[in-house]
């Protein structure tokens, strides 16, 4: 069920129409007079933007039915959508105290559907599968594992995968630094097979001399590495050193 519009409260300002990231809100005009908005269920990704922007609180959430509950991952303000806290782990954010990625390892973080395109679970699964085949150890504390579990247990059918659309899903895993060429090759192959975009992030430890061990390896592979990054400053305690 998409969000419900209380037509008695709606003042027809149109902010929800403009703010919807997937153009799922339409206004129907009758005799030239603009009516209240309605939400196209097939397009809605349950991000909650329309609910928050409405100045008169005329829009409220109606809980979606499984498997469309996955759409709720589109709303970062909702905790524990899949029973797994957040939309993934703290990845690099707490690596100074968790040691999730150790020296010699690289974290692989694939943000599927962003920016501004959205994704289906089918495209998420395509990327998950190629990473697995390339020897990436997938993160269990991530919604991707719930999708795989639901598929294995038959709760989610393969046909459902292309029907469930959401803002994005983050795929996480890790591998040894020497395995990076296989990972990059897998991503190069799968980018031609998906009907969306995905952002690629590579995590590693920073050396004492501030060199970045995987940086040269990536350049040798002909990969463009952006001049910006997310840096864990190492202020967390107790600090994981290895």
């Amino acid at each position, binding site marked *: 069920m998409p969000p419900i519009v209380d037509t008695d409260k709606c003042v027809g300002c149109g902010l929800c129409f*403009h703010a919807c990231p997937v153009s799922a809100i339409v206004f129907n005009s009758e005799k030239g007079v603009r009516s209240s908005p309605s939400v196209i269920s097939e397009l809605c990704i349950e991000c909650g933007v329309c609910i928050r922007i409405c100045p008169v609180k005329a829009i409220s959430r109606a809980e979606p039915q499984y498997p469309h509950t996955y759409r709720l991952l589109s709303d970062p303000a909702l905790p524990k959508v899949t029973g797994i806290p957040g939309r993934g782990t703290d990845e690099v954010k707490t690596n100074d105290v968790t040691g999730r990625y150790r020296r010699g390892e690289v974290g692989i973080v694939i943000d599927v559907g962003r920016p501004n395109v959205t994704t289906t679970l089918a495209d998420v699964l395509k990327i998950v599968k190629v990473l697995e085949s390339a020897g990436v150890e997938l993160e269990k504390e991530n919604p991707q594992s719930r999708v795989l579990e639901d598929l294995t247990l038959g709760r989610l059918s393969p046909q459902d995968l292309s029907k469930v659309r959401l803002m994005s899903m983050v795929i996480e895993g890790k591998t040894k630094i020497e395995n990076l060429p296989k990972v990059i090759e897998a991503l190069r192959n799968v980018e031609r097979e998906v009907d969306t975009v995905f952002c*690629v992030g590579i995590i*590693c430890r920073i050396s004492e001399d501030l060199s970045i061990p995987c940086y040269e390896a990536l350049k040798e592979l002909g990969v463009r590495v952006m*001049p910006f990054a*997310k*840096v864990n*400053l190492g202020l967390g305690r107790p600090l994981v050193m290895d």
Partner: protein
Amino acid sequence: MTHTLHRFGDRRNDFPWLITPREGVNTDNLPEKLDRVIQIIDRVGIRMWGFGACKNILMASREQLVKELMEVAQKSPARARLRGVCTSKEQLKEFIRELKEANLGLSVTVSGLIEEIFDICKELGIKPHSINLSLGVWGRRELLPKEGILEITTMCGHGLVSPRLVEYVLNEIRHGRMTPKAGATLLARQCTCGVFNVERAEKLLGKLSKETKT
């Protein structure tokens, strides 16, 4: 999540930061630690911040935001994650300097130009621990909005700022019904984390509104 990493455009003067408690590791006296961080935020003049990916400073009064943060810090510490954005290298340096001196033991992550962040680390005697490099956007790039719009929308990495809302704001500015500052504030309210750089958006909106609509 990687919601502050893959931003488009000129990344000078744009430093989203994240302070992330880890339950069972460094969450003792968490309300007191977060209170110290908020004092530092105020002292260095950070105008945009929020917590838990659910509310930013433009969505509630400061008092209400702090009250809710403290409640979350006591009930579910893992969700008491502070997020915000520094709008200059100097401001970021001061922020990190004070965080280092406060020695709170909470993990601090900063996104921005690698060279600038490493410069600050060297100046302050900090040894950065780990890095998340961006390899950019792959796949069907032809589905992306145009570059100027992306510079604004990707400041909310969760995708809550819609390209259509940016177009609407630009249209309002062109017709003199909205200032770039008001437009930037409206857009920033959609980013529940509080990492949307309002100052940068204001400048971008001013620039884009003068360009011919395509």
